[in-house]
Each structure stands twice: as structure tokens, then as C-alpha cells.
């Protein structure tokens, strides 16, 4: 079973996405803290990371930068989500971007594209 990790400081939203993705047959885990999420990725890289951009302590873009520097983590597909516009970063360092508010069908469709 493909594993998806969701990191979003809005835990309730992350958990809702996890329930939804479990319904679709994935193993999904929700984490609200960026640092905790990064540790989790290092312990066992997921098949897909869904990552919120605006978070306290360490934001989503910092997590992307750290992952891209680590050869073991740099190839993990990332779905960035934010209520703000798509962030500008040098090169294409993530796989997809979804702007909030998105709906469950957009989410499922994008996840399927990234994970298969």
C-alpha cells in the first residue's frame, strides 16, 4: 500500500485529507508540526508528501529545501498546498501545487497523478 504523509498545521484539515485518502486505498498519516513531519520523513520516506506552505517553526518551503539537499529524500514527490499564490522557488523543486480552497476531487486526481 502506498504511503502518503500530510503535514499541515491545520491538523483537522490534515486529518480530513488522511480519511479521504484512506478511503481511496492509501495509507495516510497526518502531522501538524513541520519538524515532527521532517523526522517522520527521515525515518521512513513516504511515496508522496502533501505539504502546507505556511506553518509555524518551519514552513513548507524550508522542508522542501532540506529534502532536496538530502539524496535519500530528494526524489519524493511533493504536493504543496497553500491559500496564497504558488510560491516562487528556483527550479521546479516540487511536483505539484494546489491552491486552497480545493475540493476533494481535485485532491484525489492530483494525488493519483503523482503517486502512479
Amino acid at each position: 500500500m502506498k504511503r502518503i504523509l500530510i503535514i499541515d498545521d491545520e491538523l483537522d484539515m490534515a486529518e480530513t485529507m488522511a480519511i479521504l485518502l484512506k478511503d481511496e486505498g492509501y495509507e495516510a498519516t497526518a502531522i501538524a508540526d513541520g519538524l515532527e513531519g521532517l523526522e517522520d520523513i527521515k525515518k521512513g520516506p513516504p511515496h508522496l508528501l502533501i505539504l502546507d506552505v505556511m506553518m509555524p517553526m518551519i514552513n513548507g518551503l524550508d522542508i522542501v529545501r532540506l529534502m532536496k539537499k538530502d539524496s535519500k529524500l530528494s526524489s519524493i514527490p511533493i504536493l504543496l498546498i497553500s491559500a496564497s499564490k504558488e510560491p516562487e522557488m528556483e527550479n521546479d523543486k516540487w511536483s505539484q501545487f494546489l491552491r486552497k480552497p480545493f475540493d476533494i476531487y481535485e485532491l484525489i486526481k492530483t494525488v493519483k497523478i503523482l503517486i502512479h
Partner: protein
Amino acid sequence: MPDQTANRLKKNIPEILKRWEKRTWSEVKASNHQETLALRDSLPEYLSKMAEALLGSIIRTDESRLKDRIEITRIGKKHGNNRAFSLNYTIDQLIMEYHILRQVICDVMDKEKLLTLVERELITCAIEQAVNDAATEFSDTVKEINLKANQEEELRKTIRTRDEFLSIVSHELKTPLTSLKLKSQLLLKRDGDQDETQINKFLKFPEFVSLQVNRMSHLIEDILDFGRIRTGSYKLEFRTKNICKVILDVIEQAGPAFKLFRLSPPELLFAEDAIVSIDEERIKQVIKNLLTNAIRFGQCKPVQIEVVINSAEVEVIVSDQGIGIKAQDQERIFKMFERAVTPSEVSGLGLGLYITKEIIIAHGGRVWVESEFGSGSTFHFALPKGRFQLVRHDLPKGGNRA
């Protein structure tokens, strides 16, 4: 004799003009960057007027003197005004142009025949008059240009701030909206698959909706309060209250927030008879703002609320042991749209402490923060002690500027 001098001056205008231009280009630094010298076009006319002033044969009436005076002033002002729009031009350089003119006139004239003391004095006076007019106009125009530039900069800043604010508002409203959208769509998707009550219980949907709607309503209230403060339509109704009772009401309302952050209710250290004259709803808003910040930035560590009575004030102290605020940010955070953290770190409109400060000032009180970065923050607000008559008070339009 003066007639001859005047005629000599008129005759030498092209030579004076040539020499003056040559020296000005080389000696006045800012002129190097000019395509034309501002005084050059009006100089022949100006020198003619000066020659007329030297002309003794013409019977000069008060009216003609006044006319010449007005004309010289006009030329001087035109010069000053032109120079004020030139980049890198200073008043010293403008004066220098006239100084060179005086020297050139005297040199050219003396070369042919020495000027008398009176003639020299007349030339100097005319130059001084012109330089005075030009310098005044230069200075006034520069002031006007700077004022306009400042106003334009202020306007640009306001537009930038408004755009940033709209972007933050949009972000803050979209976040709960996304949660609501996802959860309701999930419920619809699962409808019929399982027992509805079970799904509701599983997703805690009613509590969730209530929380997100409260969040959006709080955001909208902040935006409306901000508008009320800016337009001066923020009304306060004062009544005598024990502030400890008001704090307890807020803590009761904030129960779910403490639960969400897995925090115990705050430790309370209350003085007795903390009587103040307040608009209860607004002071509740202040306490709620401070308590919310203590929870959000408190890193899930205990929060404490203390009420102390000083000689003339009742002081409320809200302390957390969270991330703290850097010294350079401690004043700034009370200004509108300002926050100690970047919008990418923590959500919020950057209005809470601004509204808090405006409310406290409207109560005749003061608010401040003590904090050490990394070790937590302590927010204080102090209100005048005692009982007052019921009064109505409007916040000043545009908010406090202190």
C-alpha cells in the same frame, strides 16, 4: 557717464553671456549634467533691465522702477523654479551662477573702462535682488516637490499595505473555508455508505463547523473593528465592573481553545476589588486577544493571568512561556498589520494588538509588553481604578496616533 555705461553694458551683452556660460559650465558642478543653463534664455532680457537701471538719461518714474523690479523678480523666480526641478542642483550652486554673472559683468566692463563705485553698486544690488528672488523660489519649489514626493510615497505605501492586507484576509478566510469544504464533501461522498450519526461522530462535524465558523466570524469582526476605528464609528459604553469577573467569563469562553492546544486553564492570581469603569465587551475582546496570543505563541506551556491594584490603576498581566518577542519588535507589534512573526509562520491579520491598544487607550489606559526572545512574553494593560458614571465615548477617528 551713466548713459555711456548703460550703452556699454548693452553692447557687451553677447560677450558677457558667452563668458558667463563658459564659466558656469566649468565651475557649477550640477550644470555639467544640464542640457541648457536655465538662466541663459532670460539673461539677455535681464541684462537689458540692468542697463536701463544704469541709464541716467531716462527719467525713471516710480511706476517704471516698480515695473523693472517686478520684471527682475519674475526672471529670478523663473530661474529658481527651473533649477528646483534639476537633479543634483543645490541652492549654493544657484547662488554661484549669479556670483559668476556679477564677476563677468564687472570684468567685461572694467576691461573697457573701470566702473565707478555707484555703477558697481547698482550692478551688485541688481544681482543681489535677483539671487534673492531665485533662491526663495528655488527653496519654495524644492519644498513643494519634496512634499508631493512624500505624499506620493505615502500613497504608494498605503496601497501596498492595503494589497498585502487583502492578500492576508483572503488567505485567512480560505483556510477555514478549505477545511469546511473538504469535510462537507467527504461527508457527502460517504453518505449512504455508513450510518450518518456514526460519520458525524467520527468526523466531529458539528463541533468542527462551529469552530471554523467562529474562526471566520472572529476574522470578520476584526476587519469590521478595524474599519470602525479608522472611521471613528467605534462606540464605547462604560459601566463599573470587577475586571476579575470579566476575565473569568473570557476564560470560560476560551475553553475549547485551551482544549485544542491541550492546555490546562490559566493560573489566576487575582487581587480583590479590582473595580474599573469599562466597556465590558471591548475589554473582553482585549483579554481574548491577549489570551489567544498566549495560547498560539505559548508553545503549549502554562499561561498565567494576574490582576494587581496599583495606586491609581488596575493592572492585568497575561504571561506565557512561549517563543517570546525580539526587543526590536516589541513596539512595532501594536501597529496595524504588524506582527512579530512573518505571515508564513503563523496565521492572523496583524490587527489584534492594534485593536487592543486602541481599546485600552480609549479607556484612558495603557498597554505594553515585556519579553525575552525564546523565553515567553508578558503583556500588561492598566486601566484607571475606580467607579465612574455611565458615559459614552467614541474612539478618535483614524485611531490613536501616539
